[in-house]
Protein backbone atom coordinates (compact mmCIF):
# COMPACT_ATOMS: atom_id res chain seq x y z
CA UNK A 1 0.00 0.00 0.00
CA UNK A 2 1.46 3.33 -0.99
CA UNK A 3 2.22 5.82 1.77
CA UNK A 4 -0.20 8.38 0.38
CA UNK A 5 -3.09 5.90 0.26
CA UNK A 6 -2.26 4.71 3.77
CA UNK A 7 -2.25 8.26 5.11
CA UNK A 8 -5.50 9.05 3.28
CA UNK A 9 -7.19 5.98 4.79
CA UNK A 10 -5.88 6.96 8.22
CA UNK A 11 -7.22 10.48 7.75
CA UNK A 12 -10.68 9.17 6.78
CA UNK A 13 -10.73 6.80 9.76
CA UNK A 14 -9.66 9.52 12.19
CA UNK A 15 -12.17 12.06 10.90
CA UNK A 16 -14.95 9.44 10.87
CA UNK A 17 -14.36 8.07 14.38
CA UNK A 18 -13.28 11.18 16.29
CA UNK A 19 -15.56 13.52 14.32
CA UNK A 20 -18.59 11.26 14.67
CA UNK A 21 -18.05 10.60 18.38
CA UNK A 22 -17.60 14.29 19.23
CA UNK A 23 -20.52 15.48 17.06
CA UNK A 24 -22.82 12.81 18.50
CA UNK A 25 -21.72 13.98 21.93
CA UNK A 26 -23.09 17.46 21.13
CA UNK A 27 -26.38 16.01 19.91
CA UNK A 28 -26.68 13.90 23.06
CA UNK A 29 -26.00 16.97 25.14
CA UNK A 30 -29.41 17.97 23.77
CA UNK A 31 -29.24 21.65 23.02
CA UNK A 32 -32.47 23.37 24.01
CA UNK A 33 -34.70 23.52 20.94
CA UNK A 34 -38.11 23.54 22.57
CA UNK A 35 -38.31 27.02 24.12
CA UNK A 36 -41.75 26.40 25.58
CA UNK A 37 -40.40 23.44 27.53
CA UNK A 38 -37.97 25.75 29.31
CA UNK A 39 -40.12 28.90 29.48
CA UNK A 40 -43.72 27.67 29.69
CA UNK A 41 -46.07 30.29 28.31
CA UNK A 42 -49.54 30.41 29.69
CA UNK A 43 -51.99 31.80 27.22
CA UNK A 44 -55.01 33.48 28.77
CA UNK A 45 -58.13 33.70 26.72
Amino acid at each position, binding site marked *: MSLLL*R*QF*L*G*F*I*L*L*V*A*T*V*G*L*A*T*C*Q*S*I*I*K*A*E*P*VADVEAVFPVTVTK
Partner: protein
Amino acid sequence: MKTPLTHYRKPKQFISNTLQRYSPRGLLLYFLPMALIPATIIALGKGNILGIIVNASGFALYVFAAWCLRKGLQAETALADSPITRTPKLPLKMLAAIITALATGLIAWLGAQQTFPVAMMFAGGAFLGMYLSYGFDLRQKKKIADAQGYSGDEILRMLEESSLIIRSIEQANDKIRNAELNQRIENICAIADRILAEIESDPRDIRRARKFLNVYLDGARQVTEGYARTHQLTQSGQLEQNFRNVLETIESVFQEQHQKLLEEDVFDLDVKIEVLTTQLKREGIL
Protein backbone atom coordinates in the same frame (compact mmCIF):
# COMPACT_ATOMS: atom_id res chain seq x y z
CA MET B 1 37.04 43.26 9.26
CA LYS B 2 34.09 42.02 11.24
CA THR B 3 31.71 39.62 9.54
CA PRO B 4 28.16 40.99 9.48
CA LEU B 5 25.86 38.90 11.67
CA THR B 6 23.61 38.02 8.74
CA HIS B 7 26.52 36.40 6.87
CA TYR B 8 26.81 33.52 9.34
CA ARG B 9 25.35 30.34 7.96
CA LYS B 10 22.67 28.83 10.17
CA PRO B 11 23.43 25.23 11.09
CA LYS B 12 21.38 22.72 9.12
CA GLN B 13 19.71 21.22 12.17
CA PHE B 14 18.35 24.58 13.35
CA ILE B 15 16.71 25.18 9.96
CA SER B 16 15.27 21.68 10.01
CA ASN B 17 13.95 22.12 13.58
CA THR B 18 12.29 25.40 12.63
CA LEU B 19 10.61 23.84 9.61
CA GLN B 20 9.39 20.92 11.69
CA ARG B 21 8.12 23.24 14.43
CA TYR B 22 5.85 25.03 11.95
CA SER B 23 4.91 21.95 9.93
CA PRO B 24 1.13 21.37 9.85
CA ARG B 25 1.60 17.59 10.28
CA GLY B 26 -0.20 16.37 13.38
CA LEU B 27 -2.32 19.52 13.82
CA LEU B 28 -5.48 17.62 12.78
CA LEU B 29 -5.78 16.19 16.26
CA TYR B 30 -6.03 19.70 17.72
CA PHE B 31 -8.93 20.61 15.40
CA LEU B 32 -10.98 17.39 15.36
CA PRO B 33 -12.19 17.57 18.97
CA MET B 34 -13.31 21.24 18.71
CA ALA B 35 -16.96 20.04 18.82
CA LEU B 36 -16.34 19.03 22.43
CA ILE B 37 -16.12 22.69 23.47
CA PRO B 38 -19.79 23.50 22.65
CA ALA B 39 -20.73 20.03 23.96
CA THR B 40 -19.15 20.91 27.33
CA ILE B 41 -20.85 24.33 27.37
CA ILE B 42 -24.26 22.80 26.59
CA ALA B 43 -23.73 20.16 29.31
CA LEU B 44 -22.79 22.98 31.67
CA GLY B 45 -25.95 24.91 30.73
CA LYS B 46 -28.08 21.87 31.37
CA GLY B 47 -26.30 21.08 34.63
CA ASN B 48 -25.27 17.66 33.31
CA ILE B 49 -22.27 16.79 35.51
CA LEU B 50 -21.36 13.59 33.63
CA GLY B 51 -21.56 15.45 30.31
CA ILE B 52 -19.25 18.20 31.58
CA ILE B 53 -16.67 15.74 32.92
CA VAL B 54 -16.70 13.46 29.86
CA ASN B 55 -16.56 16.23 27.25
CA ALA B 56 -14.00 18.38 29.06
CA SER B 57 -11.69 15.48 29.94
CA GLY B 58 -12.10 14.09 26.41
CA PHE B 59 -11.01 17.44 24.96
CA ALA B 60 -8.02 17.59 27.34
CA LEU B 61 -7.00 14.04 26.36
CA TYR B 62 -7.14 14.90 22.64
CA VAL B 63 -5.01 18.01 23.14
CA PHE B 64 -2.46 16.01 25.15
CA ALA B 65 -2.44 13.31 22.44
CA ALA B 66 -1.87 16.00 19.78
CA TRP B 67 1.05 17.43 21.80
CA CYS B 68 2.62 13.97 22.16
CA LEU B 69 2.14 13.30 18.46
CA ARG B 70 3.83 16.57 17.44
CA LYS B 71 6.76 15.88 19.78
CA GLY B 72 7.05 12.35 18.39
CA LEU B 73 7.05 13.64 14.80
CA GLN B 74 9.70 16.25 15.68
CA ALA B 75 11.90 13.59 17.30
CA GLU B 76 11.50 11.39 14.24
CA THR B 77 12.61 14.20 11.91
CA ALA B 78 15.61 14.96 14.13
CA LEU B 79 16.57 11.28 14.14
CA ALA B 80 16.27 11.06 10.37
CA ASP B 81 18.59 14.09 10.06
CA SER B 82 21.25 12.64 12.29
CA PRO B 83 21.72 9.35 14.14
CA ILE B 84 23.45 11.25 16.94
CA THR B 85 20.09 12.63 18.11
CA ARG B 86 18.77 10.94 21.24
CA THR B 87 15.40 9.27 20.87
CA PRO B 88 12.75 10.27 23.45
CA LYS B 89 12.44 7.85 26.38
CA LEU B 90 8.73 7.27 25.69
CA PRO B 91 7.31 6.09 22.36
CA LEU B 92 5.39 9.35 21.87
CA LYS B 93 3.50 8.49 18.69
CA MET B 94 2.32 5.20 20.16
CA LEU B 95 1.29 7.05 23.34
CA ALA B 96 -0.66 9.59 21.24
CA ALA B 97 -2.48 6.75 19.43
CA ILE B 98 -3.42 5.06 22.73
CA ILE B 99 -4.68 8.31 24.27
CA THR B 100 -6.67 9.15 21.12
CA ALA B 101 -8.27 5.69 21.14
CA LEU B 102 -9.06 6.01 24.85
CA ALA B 103 -10.60 9.47 24.44
CA THR B 104 -12.66 8.40 21.40
CA GLY B 105 -13.95 5.31 23.22
CA LEU B 106 -14.84 7.41 26.27
CA ILE B 107 -16.66 10.07 24.25
CA ALA B 108 -18.52 7.48 22.16
CA TRP B 109 -19.58 5.48 25.24
CA LEU B 110 -20.40 8.13 27.84
CA GLY B 111 -20.79 11.25 25.66
CA ALA B 112 -22.53 9.91 22.55
CA GLN B 113 -24.13 7.14 24.63
CA GLN B 114 -23.27 4.32 22.25
CA THR B 115 -23.18 0.75 23.58
CA PHE B 116 -19.86 -0.42 25.02
CA PRO B 117 -18.98 -2.74 22.08
CA VAL B 118 -19.71 0.07 19.59
CA ALA B 119 -17.58 2.48 21.67
CA MET B 120 -14.76 -0.10 21.50
CA MET B 121 -15.09 -0.09 17.72
CA PHE B 122 -14.79 3.72 17.71
CA ALA B 123 -11.64 3.39 19.84
CA GLY B 124 -10.20 0.71 17.54
CA GLY B 125 -10.96 2.82 14.48
CA ALA B 126 -9.25 5.85 15.98
CA PHE B 127 -6.18 3.76 16.92
CA LEU B 128 -5.97 2.31 13.40
CA GLY B 129 -6.44 5.79 11.93
CA MET B 130 -3.54 7.11 14.02
CA TYR B 131 -1.33 4.21 12.94
CA LEU B 132 -2.15 4.62 9.25
CA SER B 133 -1.79 8.41 9.32
CA TYR B 134 1.36 8.78 11.41
CA GLY B 135 2.83 5.28 11.99
CA PHE B 136 4.55 4.34 15.21
CA ASP B 137 7.91 5.39 16.66
CA LEU B 138 11.16 4.23 15.10
CA ARG B 139 13.00 2.69 18.04
CA GLN B 140 15.81 1.24 15.92
CA LYS B 141 18.72 3.62 15.73
CA LYS B 142 20.76 4.08 12.59
CA LYS B 143 24.03 2.18 12.57
CA ILE B 144 27.48 3.62 12.06
CA ALA B 145 30.12 1.39 10.50
CA ASP B 146 33.10 0.15 12.55
CA ALA B 147 36.26 2.13 11.84
CA GLN B 148 39.82 2.61 13.08
CA GLY B 149 39.52 -0.08 15.74
CA TYR B 150 36.32 1.42 17.16
CA SER B 151 32.99 -0.33 16.95
CA GLY B 152 30.07 1.54 15.36
CA ASP B 153 28.34 1.71 18.77
CA GLU B 154 31.44 3.26 20.37
CA ILE B 155 31.62 5.89 17.65
CA LEU B 156 27.90 6.59 17.99
CA ARG B 157 28.28 6.97 21.77
CA MET B 158 31.22 9.38 21.36
CA LEU B 159 29.22 11.42 18.86
CA GLU B 160 26.18 11.46 21.16
CA GLU B 161 28.29 12.67 24.08
CA SER B 162 29.88 15.35 21.92
CA SER B 163 26.47 16.43 20.67
CA LEU B 164 25.30 16.78 24.27
CA ILE B 165 28.35 18.94 25.03
CA ILE B 166 27.46 21.21 22.09
CA ARG B 167 23.87 21.48 23.35
CA SER B 168 25.11 22.42 26.83
CA ILE B 169 27.34 25.12 25.29
CA GLU B 170 24.20 26.46 23.58
CA GLN B 171 22.31 26.40 26.89
CA ALA B 172 25.11 28.33 28.61
CA ASN B 173 25.06 30.76 25.67
CA ASP B 174 21.39 31.53 26.40
CA LYS B 175 22.44 32.89 29.80
CA ILE B 176 25.01 35.30 28.34
CA ARG B 177 23.63 38.78 27.57
CA ASN B 178 26.01 39.97 24.87
CA ALA B 179 24.98 39.76 21.20
CA GLU B 180 28.54 39.66 19.88
CA LEU B 181 29.65 36.85 22.21
CA ASN B 182 26.36 35.00 21.57
CA GLN B 183 27.05 35.09 17.86
CA ARG B 184 30.62 33.85 18.31
CA ILE B 185 29.45 30.93 20.46
CA GLU B 186 26.69 30.07 17.97
CA ASN B 187 29.32 30.06 15.25
CA ILE B 188 31.54 27.73 17.29
CA CYS B 189 28.60 25.37 17.88
CA ALA B 190 27.80 25.41 14.16
CA ILE B 191 31.39 24.43 13.26
CA ALA B 192 31.35 21.73 15.95
CA ASP B 193 28.09 20.36 14.53
CA ARG B 194 29.65 20.27 11.07
CA ILE B 195 32.67 18.37 12.43
CA LEU B 196 30.35 15.80 14.04
CA ALA B 197 28.42 15.50 10.77
CA GLU B 198 31.74 14.95 8.98
CA ILE B 199 32.70 12.13 11.38
CA GLU B 200 29.22 10.68 11.12
CA SER B 201 29.43 10.51 7.32
CA ASP B 202 32.97 9.11 7.40
CA PRO B 203 33.67 7.33 10.72
CA ARG B 204 37.34 6.83 9.72
CA ASP B 205 37.82 10.44 10.81
CA ILE B 206 37.21 9.44 14.42
CA ARG B 207 40.88 8.80 15.25
CA ARG B 208 41.98 12.20 13.98
CA ALA B 209 39.06 13.95 15.65
CA ARG B 210 39.43 12.31 19.07
CA LYS B 211 41.50 15.16 20.45
CA PHE B 212 38.87 17.60 19.28
CA LEU B 213 36.05 15.56 20.85
CA ASN B 214 37.85 14.96 24.15
CA VAL B 215 39.82 18.13 24.77
CA TYR B 216 38.70 21.15 22.77
CA LEU B 217 34.96 20.58 22.89
CA ASP B 218 34.90 19.95 26.62
CA GLY B 219 37.23 22.92 27.17
CA ALA B 220 34.84 25.14 25.19
CA ARG B 221 31.98 23.98 27.40
CA GLN B 222 33.85 24.62 30.64
CA VAL B 223 34.89 28.11 29.54
CA THR B 224 31.41 29.05 28.30
CA GLU B 225 29.61 27.70 31.37
CA GLY B 226 32.15 29.38 33.64
CA TYR B 227 31.70 32.74 31.94
CA ALA B 228 27.89 32.37 31.94
CA ARG B 229 28.05 31.87 35.73
CA THR B 230 30.57 34.56 36.65
CA HIS B 231 29.61 37.43 34.31
CA GLN B 232 26.25 37.75 36.11
CA LEU B 233 28.08 38.38 39.39
CA THR B 234 30.71 40.82 38.15
CA GLN B 235 30.75 43.30 35.27
CA SER B 236 34.45 43.14 34.43
CA GLY B 237 35.64 44.42 31.05
CA GLN B 238 38.85 42.43 31.43
CA LEU B 239 36.89 39.20 31.99
CA GLU B 240 34.83 39.87 28.87
CA GLN B 241 37.95 40.59 26.80
CA ASN B 242 39.63 37.41 28.06
CA PHE B 243 36.56 35.40 27.20
CA ARG B 244 36.45 37.00 23.75
CA ASN B 245 40.10 36.03 23.18
CA VAL B 246 39.43 32.45 24.27
CA LEU B 247 36.42 32.24 21.95
CA GLU B 248 38.54 33.49 19.03
CA THR B 249 41.11 30.79 19.75
CA ILE B 250 38.46 28.08 20.06
CA GLU B 251 36.85 29.21 16.82
CA SER B 252 40.12 29.12 14.90
CA VAL B 253 41.02 25.68 16.35
CA PHE B 254 37.59 24.33 15.41
CA GLN B 255 37.84 25.75 11.90
CA GLU B 256 41.32 24.28 11.54
CA GLN B 257 40.02 20.89 12.70
CA HIS B 258 37.15 21.02 10.22
CA GLN B 259 39.50 22.03 7.44
CA LYS B 260 41.84 19.15 8.29
CA LEU B 261 39.01 16.66 8.02
CA LEU B 262 37.98 18.07 4.64
CA GLU B 263 41.56 18.17 3.33
CA GLU B 264 42.15 14.60 4.41
CA ASP B 265 39.12 13.63 2.35
CA VAL B 266 40.58 15.39 -0.67
CA PHE B 267 43.91 13.62 -0.04
CA ASP B 268 42.08 10.27 0.18
CA LEU B 269 40.34 10.98 -3.12
CA ASP B 270 43.65 11.97 -4.76
CA VAL B 271 45.25 8.71 -3.59
CA LYS B 272 42.27 6.69 -4.83
CA ILE B 273 42.41 8.40 -8.24
CA GLU B 274 46.17 7.84 -8.44
CA VAL B 275 45.81 4.14 -7.59
CA LEU B 276 43.04 3.80 -10.16
CA THR B 277 45.08 5.59 -12.85
CA THR B 278 48.10 3.34 -12.17
CA GLN B 279 45.90 0.27 -12.36
CA LEU B 280 44.27 1.42 -15.61
CA LYS B 281 47.71 2.14 -17.12
CA ARG B 282 48.93 -1.29 -16.09
CA GLU B 283 45.87 -2.86 -17.68
CA GLY B 284 46.68 -0.93 -20.85
CA ILE B 285 43.41 0.99 -20.80
CA LEU B 286 45.10 4.39 -20.55
